[in-house]
């Protein structure tokens, strides 16, 4: 029978279709269940109904299906526990930063847990992933994918993306 570490090794090689990070470093995998030759993966979507999900599920089925001893692969999307940016590993954070994508610090508060308040247009607390300067401005709370916002660094004059805190 195939062993769980072997499954994880393969999952580690599957990149997110929209970001330079593996799906394991992104914290998407919540559970791996193996019974005989059947593998059941429990996966947490980042954003509800993210359009990359079908592609990720297909890739998982294909890659795990290639392991000898694996006959069938099932991918289940679950919402409990919730995916959060806190689940991104340090290796994942480093990889994203290298490509100019900032990630909220682990454990920082989530907007939904506060009273509704206004977004501050100047957000000095967010360091630029290129030069670490805190002189950054939120340009658009919405970005190229549903999970990211767009910022601009006033120090190195570069735009960068940041994952939304959920």
């Amino acid at each position: 029978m195939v062993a769980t570490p072997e499954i994880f090794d393969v999952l580690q090689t599957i990149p997110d279709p929209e970001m330079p990070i593996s799906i394991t470093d992104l914290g998407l995998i919540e559970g791996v269940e193996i019974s005989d030759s059947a593998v059941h993966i429990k996966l947490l979507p980042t954003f509800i109904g993210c359009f990359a999900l079908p592609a990720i599920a297909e890739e998982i089925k294909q890659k795990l299906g290639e392991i000898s001893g694996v006959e069938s692969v099932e991918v289940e999307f679950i919402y409990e526990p919730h995916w959060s940016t806190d689940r991104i590993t340090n290796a994942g954070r480093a990889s994203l930063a290298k490509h100019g994508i900032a990630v909220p610090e682990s454990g920082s508060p989530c907007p939904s847990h506060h009273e509704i308040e206004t977004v501050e247009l100047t957000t000095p607390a967010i360091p630029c992933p290129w030069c670490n300067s805190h002189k950054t401005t939120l340009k658009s709370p919405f970005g190229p994918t549903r999970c990211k916002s767009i910022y601009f660094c006033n120090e190195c004059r570069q735009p960068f993306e940041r994952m939304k805190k959920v």
Partner: protein
Amino acid sequence: MNELDQKFHDPLINVLLCVADDKLFLGHRNSDWTGIAPILEADIAFSSLAQDDIAHASAFYELIHSINGQNPDQIAFGRNTDAYRCADIVAQDDEFNWANAIARQFYCNVYQYLWLQRLSNATWAPLASLANRICAEQAIHVDHITTWMEHLGKGTEDSKERLQTALDLYAPSASMMFEAPEGITSLFEGGILINEGCLFTAWNVCVDNILDGTGLTIAVAPCTGIGGRNGKHDADFAHALSELQEVFSTDPLAAW
């Protein structure tokens, strides 16, 4: 609690349709702005909001599917006009007037956030879990529209006046968001949903907080009469529905 007594199926599906249909049509309307919003950031934002809303609607149709086994696409696109449960404000034609789009978004976003917050306290776990998760994304919508209300309210006399006109225009249809869905009382009494008091009052407090200092005012009356939540829709809704159903009714079995 993961099991749901059969007697709660119909009323709960009705409440879920209200949420899902609101999201589907608001998303559809917001997608009208893709490519033509006044500034690039607004274009990206409204396209992103539309994607969020339609994804949220889809998740709620899936949840309905888990109760009654109906195909989610069929639920979304295959019903007659009077079987849709959205409040008509979500489908109002904004005539490509940006102030109208912002006013509609403001009324709906705050309502959706507060209602989802309450649904996340449901005792039926699959609903609580989904609503709680969507709330985290909905908070971003509310933050965003709050910023717009401040920008336009505190902008120029012209921007303030235009937005105020739009807020007044949609005030009557905003009140119909609060029309009670059929059977909701049985869900409160049966302990499936928690009755946390008047949603309209909570909404008023919240919108007043956001508008405080912007110089904008709203006057939305309590809901009276029968409207979209009970299947009685206006011409704008009928038009939006025919747009949405165009592909589906051409070939209902097409693969998407």
